[in-house]
């Protein structure tokens, strides 16, 4: 069974549209994250979510919003998509907030978003 799964794997859409990416983890972890990887492979954290505490990276536009229906799911909603949003988005989970331990994250396989 896949530990962290994301859907869809590929997403092509027009500028201005609203889209969502879903993420589920079956590891029983308490914390989930969204990372963005740009064309140069640079990985940057967008959100972390732990026990209903959402921590947002200050550089993330408010067009991006995570939603967590339960501990095992953290979906990413993006409104009014822009060309610069094109990237690979990775969901990840960890046993606890990384502040409290080594920081081993379990990543999904990524969702490649292309905005035309």
């Amino acid at each position: 069974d896949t530990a962290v799964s994301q859907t869809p794997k590929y997403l092509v859409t027009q500028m201005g549209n609203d889209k969502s990416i879903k993420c589920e983890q079956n590891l029983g972890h308490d914390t989930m994250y969204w990372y963005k990887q740009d064309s140069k492979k640079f990985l940057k954290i967008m959100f972390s979510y732990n026990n209903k505490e959402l921590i947002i990276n200050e550089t993330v536009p408010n067009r991006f919003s995570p939603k967590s229906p339960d501990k095992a799911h953290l979906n990413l909603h993006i409104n009014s998509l822009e060309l610069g949003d094109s990237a690979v988005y990775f969901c990840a989970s960890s046993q606890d907030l990384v502040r409290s331990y080594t920081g081993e994250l379990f990543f999904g396989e990524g969702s490649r978003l292309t905005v035309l």
Partner: protein
Amino acid sequence: GESVGLHLPTLSVQEGDNSIINCAYSNSASDYFIWYKQESGKGPQFIIDIRSNMDKRQGQRVTVLLNKTVKHLSLQIAATQPGDSAVYFCAENMVYSGGGADGLTFGKGTHLIIQP
């Protein structure tokens, strides 16, 4: 700005040789330093970590060295195999202050190519 960076974007080695991937960091307050491997089309995968009070840690065919004096981290891979071809990221466990998300700060990545 970034606090973790890599010296070389691409490293090519012969199969069977040893590989050394280097990383510089700037945040002395990080508790852990971690190496991740990302194969093409997949999410990053944890390899090994090292606590800031250690200078060396060994795993299976991998060794991580930490030099806090010069803020340098390296990953040594012994007897490289074709399956080692991937992008390698160093990361540090750093808690943002004031408006940031808990999570790992990743370096830019080094593409390791194994020549037959």
